């Protein structure tokens, strides 16, 4: 277990290094940060002087070395726009994004398992056919379109839901202000969560359905039927447990992907999270913030994958973790 974790941390360090190198090398192609910092009438000489002052004219390796030296001490540079350490800016926005991802995950878990299992057990039932049909549509519509449609119907036409932002928040601790403790906060969470889950939900319903159908065909389930076990016990204890193994693997990877999808959802709903922050940073050529974001998201991917591997071991004790002898 310990060896496994150590190996994972070493892997993470390499991943971070590569990400930082890549994001650093693309920054020249993102545009000129000075353009976003000064007014249009400021002369080229003036801009060049500022660029010099900020060290942007130095050769690539000099700039990277300066960045790397600070980065190993946890300082990823200051955001041009926020004028604060980039890491701090991102960590402040992290809770908002995690709450959104949590809201979407909640919807996915609560809906995909019963619907997936039901359509596996009763594939010819009209409800199963409906679920399958709707899920095809769900997969094919892009997230931002779903988001705008939801907003149009529920915020503008029906006036039931707020159109943007997080609403009333309750301070929990540190940077964490939560929207889960007030009705207003929850109302603000509903549409973005649905929009964010709209891609993953159909995927999971289909995955659970096909895995479940496969498991129901297997020898041990037939044996269980032959033994005359209670159907509930067969479906929900014996079959479901084995169905969930691949689902957890895919799920872990997808939670990471979902962090990426938050960029679209957050932008449409003006959700003050990391994804929205990232898109804004790209627009403003806030390079320190872009680099820091990529590193943080890289870290999230590594962490979720590690956790998934650990859970996997718990659900199925026969699986051996790499490095665990």
């Amino acid at each position: 277990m310990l060896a496994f974790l150590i190996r994972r941390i070493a892997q993470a360090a390499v991943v971070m290094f590569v990400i930082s190198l890549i994001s650093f090398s693309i920054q020249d192609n993102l545009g000129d940060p000075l353009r976003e910092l000064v007014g249009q009438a400021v002369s080229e000489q003036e801009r060049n002087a500022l660029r010099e002052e900020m060290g942007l004219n130095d050769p690539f390796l000099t700039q990277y070395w300066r960045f790397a030296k600070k980065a190993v001490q946890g300082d990823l540079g200051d955001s041009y726009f926020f004028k604060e350490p980039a890491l701090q800016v991102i960590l402040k926005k992290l809770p908002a994004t995690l709450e959104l991802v949590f809201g979407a995950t909640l919807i996915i878990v609560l809906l995909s398992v019963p619907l997936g299992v039901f359509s596996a057990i009763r594939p010819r039932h009209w409800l199963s056919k409906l679920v399958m049909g709707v899920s095809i549509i769900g997969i094919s519509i892009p997230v931002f379109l779903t988001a705008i449609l939801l907003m149009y119907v529920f915020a503008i036409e029906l006036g039931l839901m707020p159109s943007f932002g997080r609403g009333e928040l309750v301070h929990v601790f540190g940077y964490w202000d939560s929207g889960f403790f007030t009705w207003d906060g929850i109302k603000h969470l509903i549409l973005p969560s649905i929009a964010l889950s709209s891609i993953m939900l159909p995927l999971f319903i289909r995955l659970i359905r096909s895995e479940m159908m496969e498991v129901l065909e297997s020898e041990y389930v037939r044996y269980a039927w032959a033994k005359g076990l209670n159907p509930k016990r067969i479906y929900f204890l014996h079959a479901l447990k084995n169905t969930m193994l691949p689902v957890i693997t895919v799920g872990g990877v997808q939670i990471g992907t979902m962090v990426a999808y938050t960029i679209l959802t957050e932008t449409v709903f003006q959700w003050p999270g990391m994804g929205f922050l990232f898109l804004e940073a790209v627009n403003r050529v806030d390079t320190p913030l872009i680099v820091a974001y990529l590193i943080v998201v890289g870290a999230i991917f590594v962490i979720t994958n590690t956790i998934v591997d650990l859970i996997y071991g718990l659900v199925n004790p026969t699986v051996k973790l790499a490095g665990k002898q």
Partner: protein
Amino acid sequence: MKKTLGIIAGAVLSLGLVNANAATLKLALDADPVSLDPHEQLSGGTLQLSHWLFDPLIRWTKDLTFEPRLAEKWERVDDLTMRFHLRKDVKFHSGNTFTAKDVKWTFDRLKQSPDFKGIFEPFADVKIVDDYTIDLVTKEPFPLVLNNATYLFPMDSAFYSGTDDNGQPKDLLVKHGNSFASRKASGTGPFTVSYREQGVKVEFARYPGYWDTKSPGNVDKMILTPIKEDPTRVAALLSGDVDYIAPVPPTDLKRIESDKNSKLVTMSGTRIITFQMNQNRRAEFKDPRVRLAINYAINQEAISDKIMKGFSTPAAQLSPKGYLGYNADLKPRFDLKKAKELMKEAGYEKGFSITMMAPNNRYVNDEKIAQAAAAMLAKINIKVDLKTLPKAQYWPEFDARSADIMMIGWHSDTEDSNNFYEFLVMCPNTETGAGQYNSGNYCNPKVDEMVKEANKVTDTKKRAEIMQNIEKTLYDEGAFIPLHWQDLAWASKKNVGAEEVLNVMDFPYFGDLVIK
């Protein structure tokens, strides 16, 4: 004890009466201010904020005249000197009293700002005559003293003196640092910042000691949320979550007009959108006949109608109506036959191929306009290889002059025609900074002479004559391709008196806003 309670109750009651019609304004803009420091960046956002937290000496009115703010009246002393009499009994948010030394202090700081020093370059000094009188002295006779005085928002010199917690001077002016002035502000304006989370929201509270007690404004709290996405900003207004939005995307104008709870305020704007033909890259563009042919081939009215949905004014010159340089004789001149003739005359009947670049998120419909222009040029056999880029990547390309035809929009910081000429059509000169945005390298010494002259003449009529002559010369030589002036649009709920406080500069004076 009872007496004290009674007094308190009375006080509370009277306060209640005073605030009986006080209102909260929730507004959504496409971005929030980058900094509380009014000298950090010369941008529309900074100036809007300056009008809320500070007051200028004088400000623009709706019909482009000046009205007194911190300067009660002003008079010309001699060719170089303009005297301003300052308002007495004005308090800064910190409680300090506003005097002439604050004006002087602010002026000196403006001279240090990379963004603002260009505007204050013609000025030599601010001389303090007495506590409430100053002289603004220019280096040479300068016609735009009042225009530029609208940029002078006196800051609280005592408040910004000394050092902050980090040991930095409080008046430190930096672009990318956590300076005191970028976080804290003390002005004389109608509002103070009560809460600010950058990129998420800014809350303003009305300053109880605001000097302008005659202002009808009844907004005592203002909550600004930046909403970047156009559809979301519109949705926020239509669903009633905010009271005011700007800018309004052209695609949603009808939607808002037809909404029973909202109203639309529009004005024809002053930002000109143009294409420039690079004569250093293409020998063809050195021939005025080719430049004119292109001008005849572009149909400004069609672009305005079809692409802008009528949300712009077709242009044939730089100066919009209302500016001194506006020449009423110059009209858009779409004429395909004439264009073809000119091409033939110049020996390019078969045409040629060129490259074109335009941004795709800087101006309203910029990408579509460029596509339409490319299609129009195809009719006179000019094949266009068009590339559009996000503004962040476009500006470095523009600085490098990377294409034969490039799009540029311009708004005059001084609300005066000469600003257009100085940046867009004067012969490029890196030393003086003239023609900094003249990617076409159009260069006519006669025009340069006239621009310089117009900068010295203080007689309005004579200036107008010179500048209208400049427009005529540019028109006749086809110096560039004017397209249109973008219209401005704002939207609010019906009970918000937005139209009263809006103007063509897009500086909403929310201090005077009335919400019923």
